[in-house]
C-alpha cells in the first residue's frame, strides 16, 4: 500500500470515529427521544460510511471490499427502517 492511500485510510477512519463519538454524545445529551433518534441516524450513518470507506482502501481483495459495501448498505437499510418504526411508536404514545 502506498503512503498516500494509507494516510487517506487513517484520515477516513479517524473522521468516522469522530462522527460516532459526536453521535454518542448527542445520544446522551439530547433532551427527548426524537432528537436522540435524529442524532443516531445521521451522525452514526455518516461515521460508519467513513469507517467503511477507510477500510475499503485497505481491503486486500475486491470481494472483501464488496462485502464491506454490503455491510454498510445493510446497516443503512435497517437503521433507517427501525428509526422510522421507533418514530411511529413515539407518535402513537404521544397521541
Amino acid at each position, binding site marked *: 500500500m502506498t503512503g498516500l492511500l494509507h494516510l487517506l485510510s487513517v484520515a477516513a477512519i479517524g473522521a468516522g470515529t469522530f462522527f460516532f463519538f459526536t453521535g454518542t454524545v448527542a445520544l446522551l445529551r439530547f433532551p427527548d427521544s426524537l432528537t436522540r433518534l435524529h442524532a443516531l441516524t445521521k451522525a452514526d450513518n455518516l461515521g460508519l460510511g467513513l469507517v467503511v470507506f477507510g477500510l475499503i482502501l485497505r481491503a486486500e481483495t475486491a470481494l472483501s471490499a464488496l462485502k464491506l459495501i454490503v455491510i454498510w448498505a445493510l446497516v443503512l*437499510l435497517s437503521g433507517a*427502517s*427501525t428509526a422510522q418504526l421507533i418514530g411511529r411508536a413515539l407518535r402513537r404514545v404521544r397521541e
Partner: protein
Amino acid sequence: MSVLPYLDVGLALLVVAVAAWTVAARALFASVVSYVAYGLLLAFVWIRLYAPDVALTEAAVGGGVTGVLLITAGKRLGALHDIGPDVRPGVGLKLLTGVLAALVAGALASVILLLPDPPPSLAPEASAAIDSAGAGLGNPITAVLMSYRSFDTMLEKIVLVLAVAGVWSMTADEAWGRAPSPFRRSRPYAPTIFLAQMLAPIGTLIGIHVFWTGANAPGGAFQGGALLAAIWIITMMARLAEPPRVDARWLRMALVAGPAVFLVNGLTGEFVAGSFFAYPPSVAKPIILFIEAFMVLSIAVALPMLVAGPSSEGSDQ
C-alpha cells in the same frame, strides 16, 4: 498492542454493566432490550478470544433470536405486566442471595485463576481427525462439528426437534394442528414491510454464503441456518408470510431432514468407512457439505417454529 488490554478491560466492564442492567431493570421490556445489547457485546468478547464462529452464533442466536422470542412472549402475556409489589423479595433474602451469588462467582473466578498450566488441549487429537476424516475443510470448527464430534452435532439437531415437539405439546386440545398465532395482530407498519421485502432476498443470499464459506472460514451450518431463520421470522412479522399449520407435511419433513440425513450418513459410514460416523476421506468434504445443507434447512425451520410457539385457536381465518 499497548492499548488492547485497556480495551479488553473496558469491554468486560461494559458487558458486566449491561448484564447487571438486565437483572436490575424495572420493566421486562427494558430488561429484554438490554439482554439483546448484551448478546451483541458478548460477541465482541468472543472475537477477542479468537472465536469468530462462536461470536457469529452468539450474535445471531444468543442475542437476536432469543430477544425476538422474549419480546414476543412478553407481548403475548399482555401489556408486559409485572407481578405485584407484594411478592417482591425482602431485604434479608436479597442480602442472602447476594452473598450466595458472590460466593459462587468468587469460587468460579478462583478456579479460573488456578487453571492448570500447561493447559490440557484436545487440539492435537482434533487436528489428527481433521487431517483424516474431515479432509478438505479449512475451518477447524466445522471439521470438529461435522467429523471429530459429529455425534454431538447430530444429537443437538435431535434436541432442536424435541424442543419443537415440546413447544407444540403446549397446544390447547381444541387448537391442535392449526397454525401458531401471527407475530402481530394489527396491520404492520410500512417500514416493517419495506425492511422485510428488502432483507428477504439479500438475507437469504448471505445465509447461504455464510453456510458455504463455513467449510473454510468462520461461518457454518448453525450461523447460516440462524440467518435464514431470522429472515423467515421478519417476513412473518411483516405479515408477508403467515406461520404454517403445525400439521403440514412439508414442515415436519423439513424439521427432521437434518438429523435424519445425518443419521443415515452415520450408519452408511459403518459399512463404507468402517466405523459409525466415519466418512471415506476422498469424498469427506462433499458428504459433509451435503449433510450440512440439510442441517441448515432444519435449523432455518426449527428456530422460527420455536419463536412462533404452539398453535392457537382462531389463527386460521
